[in-house]
């Protein structure tokens, strides 16, 4: 049987992973809600099922207004970052590419810092400015990188784009650091944003991210076969009839849009876009047709679990997400890498 047909079992494992992670995220927390009652409460909301969980209104609110949006937001952010990372690795044919490669993180960092130090971080009226400026900062940074990378050389090579990304990121980080140093009173707020968090998660943030995450992810998924063709390099991809420059542009736009929206609601969560796709590749093979959908599922499951660790380990205090993703992700990644001889791609 051809390799491309062997996909259903891997996808099934991915769905189980996300269900387990979501279940754990919804049932475990410092409020100490009885787990059986919590399961009954969740079932009660299913169509055609009506069970009395015996939970108080406050406990129900904790499940539906605190834990659920946090799990959903974590899953959306994890899925978006992982699939963006996988798509960047495909279009740049570079295993080290991550969603922040073209300056999205630096741009978002600058945007968030500006919002926080100018005092608009607490919101203007009911409107939260930090995510908006982070989102715009990320998009502007990527656009700048793209324009710079493609105007710099006669060869429209991915390498020029990567170098432009390094330049833009350094430049924006320099400005961000300067602003931060000039406003030391807000340094803690900025720092907390940079390390990533989901503790402010609410349905508002879910509805902010969801449309972008959906559009970005669907677009990238539609290109899953084309991204396998891109692995042949620009010349050979072109010889089988695709336009590598155009594919790269569309995929970068989609991934950057999703990344910018994810960063806007959760801050900078490192490593997810790198570790998840590579783990998937090592376990399920290098074809983007399986790497992209599995990155969505495992990215979502991974971040929900990491967030659960972050809020459980030092409960009731919270450990920043970026710290946990790196702390858990890096050793796990090394184990997978060592236990499997397959090549990264």
């Amino acid at each position: 049987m051809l390799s491309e047909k062997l996909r259903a079992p891997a996808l099934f494992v991915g769905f189980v992973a996300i269900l387990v992670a979501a279940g754990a995220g919804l049932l475990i927390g410092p409020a100490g809600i009885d787990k059986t009652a919590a399961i009954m409460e969740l079932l009660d909301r299913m169509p055609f099922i009506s069970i009395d969980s015996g939970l108080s209104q406050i406990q129900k609110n904790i499940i539906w207004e605190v834990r659920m949006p946090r799990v959903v937001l974590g899953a959306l952010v994890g899925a978006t970052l992982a699939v963006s990372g996988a798509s960047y690795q495909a279009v740049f044919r570079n295993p080290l590419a991550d969603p922040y490669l073209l300056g999205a993180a630096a741009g978002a960092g600058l945007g968030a810092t500006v919002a926080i130090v100018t005092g608009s971080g607490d919101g203007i009226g009911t409107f939260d400015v930090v995510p908006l400026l982070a989102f715009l900062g990320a998009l502007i940074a990527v656009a700048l990188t793209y324009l710079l990378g493609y105007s710099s050389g006669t060869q429209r090579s991915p390498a020029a784009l990567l170098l432009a990304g390094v330049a833009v990121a350094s430049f924006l980080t320099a400005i961000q650091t300067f602003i931060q140093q000039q406003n030391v009173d807000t340094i803690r707020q900025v720092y907390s944003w940079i390390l990533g968090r989901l503790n402010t998660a609410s349905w508002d943030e879910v509805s902010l991210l969801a449309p972008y995450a959906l559009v970005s992810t669907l677009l990238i998924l539609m290109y899953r076969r084309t991204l396998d063709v891109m692995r042949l390099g620009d010349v050979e991809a072109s010889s089988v009839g695709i336009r590598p420059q155009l594919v790269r542009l569309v995929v970068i736009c989609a991934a950057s849009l999703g990344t910018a929206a994810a960063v806007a609601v959760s801050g900078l969560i490192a490593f997810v876009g790198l570790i998840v796709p590579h783990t998937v590749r090592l376990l399920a093979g290098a074809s983007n047709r399986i790497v992209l959908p599995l990155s969505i599922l495992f990215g979502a499951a991974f971040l929900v679990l990491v967030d659960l660790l972050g809020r459980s380990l030092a409960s009731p205090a919270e450990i920043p997400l970026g710290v946990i993703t790196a702390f858990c992700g890096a050793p796990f990644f090394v184990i997978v890498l060592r236990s499997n001889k397959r090549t990264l791609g």
Partner: protein
Amino acid sequence: MNLCVARGVDVRVGQKLILDNVSVSIEAGEWVSVVGPNGAGKTTLLSVMAGLRTASGNILIGDRDLKELSPRERARLLAYVPQHPEIPPGMKVDSYVLLGRTPHLSFLGMEGPDDFRLVQQVLEQFDLATLGQRTLESLSGGELQRCHLARAIAQATPIIFLDEPTTALDLGHQQQALDRIRRLREEHQVTVVMTMHDLTLASQYCDRMILMSEGQIAADGTPSEVLDPDRLSDLYGAHVKVLNIDDHLVVVPIVGR
């Protein structure tokens, strides 16, 4: 019938003319090898005719101008195997050959049962059926060469361009590769244009040879017309003799005095 015609093709890199007013026409069903010393412009000519490099002048594929074809239309007519194809890490042999079907799928479309069936046949034809689940990087040089050819055949085009298809192969694998191309031409009625360094092998397999030198065509004709020892000695800066052994031409270098 002329299947591929290049007229007045110029390629310039900086001040240097890589191809200088080159005109060639390839007939349907021909097996043409483009030969010449290093830097003569063989690979450039091949990639220009395959539509993968821009050049001034005109290229006609059948009765259509190459510039007016979309990449997908072009890829349904012309397949191209570079001298050193990319080996994507972790890619399975069958997935790789399946990528040859790309120009026949709709925009962002996936392969259908017909594509899978065709690729299965191609894998069998190339003795790759048992290697389908292996990754490309685990294959030997000869097996890899078969994969590249198989992907080009899966593309199902009337013309295939091969850039030095026998490089990095030993004597036996070189012959096997060329024998396979010969069988493919008979089975698929495909026109083959390839660059070669080995003049002896080129002359024994091809119908026609195009000898290039400094971006121009120095000779064009049957192997016996093109392989003139004086011309070769002059263009290659070498001392060679052309022998006839059992009606096969053999180009041998002779130590110069």
